[in-house]
């Protein structure tokens, strides 16, 4: 799961709403259009009742879509959801690069 606190990394930060959205979208994406809510809950490390609220929000924002298969809803990521993920990870990359990367020059290499 994407929780950095759980990963034990230094400088771990608390998961914010956008982190949770990204976590859920990435897990849903793995199932290629056939993500059931229980499986997503295991993958995202989130109880189903809390996940249901979050997924309702993602559906309302157009980042997820769902359809009924055999009477049960299955979920898939939308192009807008993928756009959110691309932007989210790019921004995380910048933030970690700016805050986390050691300054090579400080090591006296130059």
């Amino acid at each position, binding site marked *: *799961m*994407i929780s950095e606190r759980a*990963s034990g990394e230094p400088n771990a930060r608390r998961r914010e709403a956008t982190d949770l959205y*990204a*976590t859920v*979208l*990435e*897990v*849903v*994406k*793995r*199932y290629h259009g056939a993500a059931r809510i*229980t*499986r*997503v809950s*295991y*993958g*995202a*490390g989130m109880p189903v009742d809390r996940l249901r609220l979050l997924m309702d929000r993602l559906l309302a924002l157009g980042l997820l879509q769902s359809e009924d298969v055999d009477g049960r809803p299955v979920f898939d990521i939308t192009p807008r959801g993928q756009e959110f*993920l*691309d932007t*989210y*990870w*790019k*921004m*995380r*990359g*910048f933030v*970690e*690069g*700016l805050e986390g*990367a050691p300054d*090579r020059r400080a090591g006296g*290499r*130059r």
Partner: protein
Amino acid sequence: MSDMHVPRGSSVRVGAVDGDLEVEGRATIEAEGVARVQGEVRCTGSVDVVGNLECREFRSEHGKVHIQGNLTVADRVATDEGELEVSGTFAARDVDVDRRLVLGGPATVETVEVGGRLEGASTLRAKEVSVGGHFTLAGKIEAHSVEAGGSVELHEVSLDDLEVGGMVHVGGGAVRHRIEVGGKFSSDEPITFGDFSVGGWAEFRGHASGQKIEVGGVLSARQDLAFASLEIGGMGDIHGNAAGRDVEIGGKFSVGGRLELTGSLEVGGMISVERELTAASIEVGGKLRAERAIVSGSVEVGGTIQTNAGLKARVIELGPRSRAVGPLVGGRVVLSRGARAEDVFGSTVELDRKCEARRIVAENIRLRESCTVEQIVFTGSLVMESGVTVRSPPQKVATLPPFPL
């Protein structure tokens, strides 16, 4: 064929079972040597198996099944709303676990799908591995594909494809076809790969070699990096040497050693190369800094060129109000309005209005109005518009002195 039923809470010794074995919760199975079940093992609730178990199919639901020994399943393993832990070796064809799969020993499967977490303390051989959440393995993994929604921590890898939504940390090895990661990728040891796409941050701590590398945010390579093409949205920092065909960087790019390109280099912001830079063409929006730069084609720089030994190219164009520190050696060198340079060598040198140069050595020279040059040496033509200042009289010579680089 006779089935066997183990009631809830009981402890039973099992040897050979001709039919199916049905086990209720809180029961313990003690294997007599190896518990061999010809049919299916079905566990409901939490069950302990002490010893080795072999069966055709294995199913469990609503609980944790702990095999304190080896588990060998000819066909399929399926756990519904539950966990499976195998302390010894594990072999099966297809594995589908809802919540968590823990493997203590070496495992060989064709496909494994886990909804939550897959944790392995030894090796894993598989065709396909799919995990919804977290996947960690202490030993070597050999597989066609590994896919995970959350994060992955692996040591030595031998894969065709690796696709992860969140974060990946690998020791080293080979991913022959493609690595695709949404968030962050890091590797400790040498790694080779085909295509590489990371949305956020990528860090190679050992040597890395691949084909097409795309990073949305930041790339850091602690040692050498080899590639066909390198595209970074934000910043790139390579501590060792870098070699490849093309590079495209949105922001800043720095190389601690040499940068050798057979194709183009495009940088939106700044590039810094501690040693030699070679390329077919260069386009830099901001600043280019290198010990020396040798370019077979053209160079366009919007801001500053700073070299110690110089920059050599077929065509060099400096943008308006730009600055060059170190010699410029071209076939054709063009300074746009208000640009400043030190020594400029070329077959043709053109300075737009209000440019400044210390020394120009060229066959043909054209200076637009209000340019200032300290020294001019030429063999062919010298055209100067009004308001040009040349501090010492231009020298027309039969042969130009040798150019640097």
